[in-house]
């Protein structure tokens, strides 16, 4: 077999997914999603600066089904990337490297980001009143 055809690690087709590796790639995925979502934020700010008509168009989009789904995805991506980012900063400082600790903090991140997303949307709907 030629050197450039050899399978490289991690050989994803035969590699059993684990919590740690899944959370790692989701961190990257949510990061890319957040970067894309920043376009929506800038659009919202541009519209606010442009005037009531342009702003109403953005708010209409945000209130539509597609807009709400995008905002829900953005909320989860932000909550997840924030929580898992803090987990990464603890690792950078040298804490939580033992396997049981990595799993515990991993499940904590999953629970915290789901709960935070839910909380944001419940409060959001309560404030909005619809």
């Amino acid at each position, binding site marked *: 077999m030629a050197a450039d055809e050899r399978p490289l690690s991690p050989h994803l087709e035969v590699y059993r997914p684990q919590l740690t590796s899944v959370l790692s790639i989701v961190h*990257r995925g949510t*990061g*890319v999603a*957040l*970067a894309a979502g*920043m*376009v929506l*934020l*800038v659009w919202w*700010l*541009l519209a*606010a*600066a*442009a*005037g*009531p008509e342009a*702003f*109403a168009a953005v*708010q209409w989009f*945000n*209130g539509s089904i597609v807009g709400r789904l995008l905002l829900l995805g953005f*909320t989860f991506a*932000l909550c997840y990337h*924030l929580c898992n*980012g*803090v987990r*990464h*900063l603890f690792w*950078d400082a040298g804490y939580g490297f033992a396997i049981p600790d990595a799993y515990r903090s991993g499940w904590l991140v999953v629970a915290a980001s789901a709960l935070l997303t839910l909380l*944001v949307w419940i*409060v*959001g709907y309560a*404030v*909005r009143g619809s």
Partner: protein
Amino acid sequence: MSIRTPLARARGLGSAKSGTRHWWLQRVTALALIPLAVWFIVGVVVLGAADHAAAVAWIGHPVSAVLLILAIGFGFWHGQLGLQVVIEDYVHGEGCRIALMLAMKGAALLLAVAGILSVLRVALGGAV
């Protein structure tokens, strides 16, 4: 054949052709974004589906205008650092990688300037 020593060739050259500066800046911007992200989420949720007047009042408020500009600046700075690593990892053709990198960095700069200018325009009274 090079007459440079192996150490001289390796010094400061990681896979990204630079030292720890990128890694460090990613952490510094991440740290700054923790409070900014929490503040932003709370602010937007409280604002809800506000009309234009309420949104302009929030964006233009001296405190939120400053924090919004910081959030946009740190957000895009952190984001383009992260996307740079993704491109370095997955795009292998050199020409394609350089082109994509320039386009991504340019887009990040463009959006950051547009966002910051919008906040300034609202805050300084240019918006109606």
